[in-house]
């Protein structure tokens, strides 16, 4: 893994130095797009937001969860985040604390308010559904560059938006996917759509982003994320509101003690 990353950066530096490189490979171009997308999201510091998660089954029945999410940008490593459940009422106060990492496995703890217990979650559980939804733990985890290898596929116009289409292959263990195909907005370097292929390389899910808003004049966040599972015909809609940036959150707001008093 470390070797891979060093190679990437070497390649990139080579490209920067040798300004007029005739042709770069599709792998290099894919990585460049990922790096640029990541660079544009740098420096947000921290954010808080409210999320409504609506689970819909084949018959159209739905159930709703309300979750508050805090995120802290960690320079040189993956972000820290805390998710606190307000609904359904029986899991009110249940909270997840995640330290995501670029190379080593993410660390995650769950707090169970009824017995006041903090439980470490084995990071093997990446492909499992997050709270019964169509989002897997790996889908909602912080998307660090090093977690994937990339390949540029083509340019494509998606509903009037010029996009790069890139393929990314999880480089971490225990992923539920062989690959993901991602449509990246050419002008803003933000994802518009991701298609997920399962371990048998069959199309499993499609994630669509809509209602993008710009915060602090720089950071794009989608108001709505729709994850459609093609195999079981269920879907999950995430609706984001109350985005607030640079709240002055610190490491101590993402500690095991803060998890216990998350409420």
């Amino acid at each position, binding site marked *: 893994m470390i070797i891979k990353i060093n190679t990437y950066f070497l390649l990139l530096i080579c490209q920067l130095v040798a300004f007029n490189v005739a042709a770069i490979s599709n792998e290099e171009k894919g990585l460049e797009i990922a790096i640029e997308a990541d660079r544009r999201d740098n420096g947000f510091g921290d954010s808080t937001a409210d999320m409504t998660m609506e*689970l819909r*089954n084949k018959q159209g029945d739905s*159930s*709703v969860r309300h979750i508050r999410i805090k995120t802290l940008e960690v320079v040189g490593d993956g972000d820290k985040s805390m998710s606190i459940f307000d*609904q*359904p*009422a*029986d*899991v*009110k106060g249940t909270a997840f604390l995640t330290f995501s990492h670029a190379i*080593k*496995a993410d*660390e995650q703890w769950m707090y169970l308010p009824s*017995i*006041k*217990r*903090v439980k*470490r979650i*084995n*990071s*093997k*559980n990446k*492909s*499992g*559904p997050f*709270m*019964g*939804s169509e989002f897997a733990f790996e889908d909602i985890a912080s998307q660090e560059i090093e977690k994937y290898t990339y390949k540029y596929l083509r340019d494509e116009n998606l509903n009037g938006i010029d996009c790069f289409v890139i393929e990314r292959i999880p480089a971490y263990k*225990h992923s*539920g996917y062989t690959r993901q195909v991602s449509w990246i907005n050419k002008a803003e370097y933000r994802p518009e759509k991701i298609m997920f292929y399962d371990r048998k390389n069959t199309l499993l899910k499609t994630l669509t982003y809509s209602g993008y808003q710009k915060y602090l004049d720089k950071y794009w966040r989608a108001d709505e994320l729709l994850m459609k599972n093609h195999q079981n015909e269920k879907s999950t809609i995430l609706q984001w509101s109350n985005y607030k940036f640079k709240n002055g959150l610190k490491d*101590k707001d993402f*500690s*095991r*003690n803060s998890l216990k*008093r998350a*409420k």
Partner: protein
Amino acid sequence: MKLFFYFLFLLLILLSSTVRAFELSGNISLQARHFFDEPLDQNQHRHYNSFAIEPEFYHAWDGDQQSLNFTAFYRYDQHDDERTHADIRELSWLKVFNDWELTVGLSKVFWGVTESQHLVDIINQTDQVENTDGEDKLGQPMIRFSTEQDWGLVDFFILPGFRERTFSGIEGRPRFEVPAGLVFDADAASYESADEENHVDYAIRWMGFFDEIELGLSYFTGTGREPESFLINGITLAPHYVLIEQIGIDIQAIIRDWTWKLESINRKSTTQTYNALTGGFEYTLYGILDSQTDLGIVIEYLYDDRDELATSPFQNDLTTAFRLALNDSQSSEVLIGIISDLDDSTVAGFIEASRRLGDKFKLTLEAKLFKNTIISRPLYNFRQDNHLQADIAWYF
């Protein structure tokens, strides 16, 4: 203890003037317990209905750096006067300072990592009439200082006042057998300490985090939560609480796909010193049979070096349990397992299943079974007490 409560009330009154809106939540539940066999004592019954209410008030201010938490609990039981009980689970004020935090009031704390029993967890008294599994706790008066640093997390506790363990009444079930001619009275408890329930206990716990390994070390000095013995005074049989010192260690290590767990204690009183241990692993198979269902396997070994004299039924036992999590929108879960005694043929079985109904209700089923119990061992008391329990709770 009385002074402490006085202080608490004062605190509450002072704070309530600054508090505008409390956030209210909680649950109300109905419970039915059915026993398959005739009771040992004719005062006991085959079927018990009860209901419980647990409201929770919460308010935070000062940018969430201060909060008040009040959780009350009440259960009414159709037959058992002792199980009809009320408790303040929590009535505490929390303040977060730069590098540390302070909790004052009645509160609940959990220590440990293992699943089948909780040896190091000693701060709170067990509310045994709620459930014999020891997971329900009474609110404990405390002053807690906590700091989380690069070198770990340290909690320091001053525990002014002791809560007596709850025991089933004469009509209650399951319960320990009372020898003929004696009357059990939990309220007639005696203490080693002359301060009785006003003895101030202390505890300290350090937790270190080393990537995939988490280590906890704890020390407790004061009145032990578990009665060391039951004393006879005239015709009254009552618990006797002694002063103890307990050193505890708990380790959890994630090694590849395995979660290894160990808890061990050394407990010392004037009459005995003993060691006990729980250790094992949890291994989860994610998405079995191409579904979203996870199957967790929990294997734990339970040991107590008092052997036959152990007050715990688990002196040389093995827990084998399976946890099925369906990962559906109703959060359906089933835990099924057995604890088998490796010295004799005793087997204790348990099933716990739960499922959310709609958005506001939750159904929980629980069964406990006791097989081939041995006359000299604690579980012999429960030989007729195989039962099934259903709870339906409404959350608000």
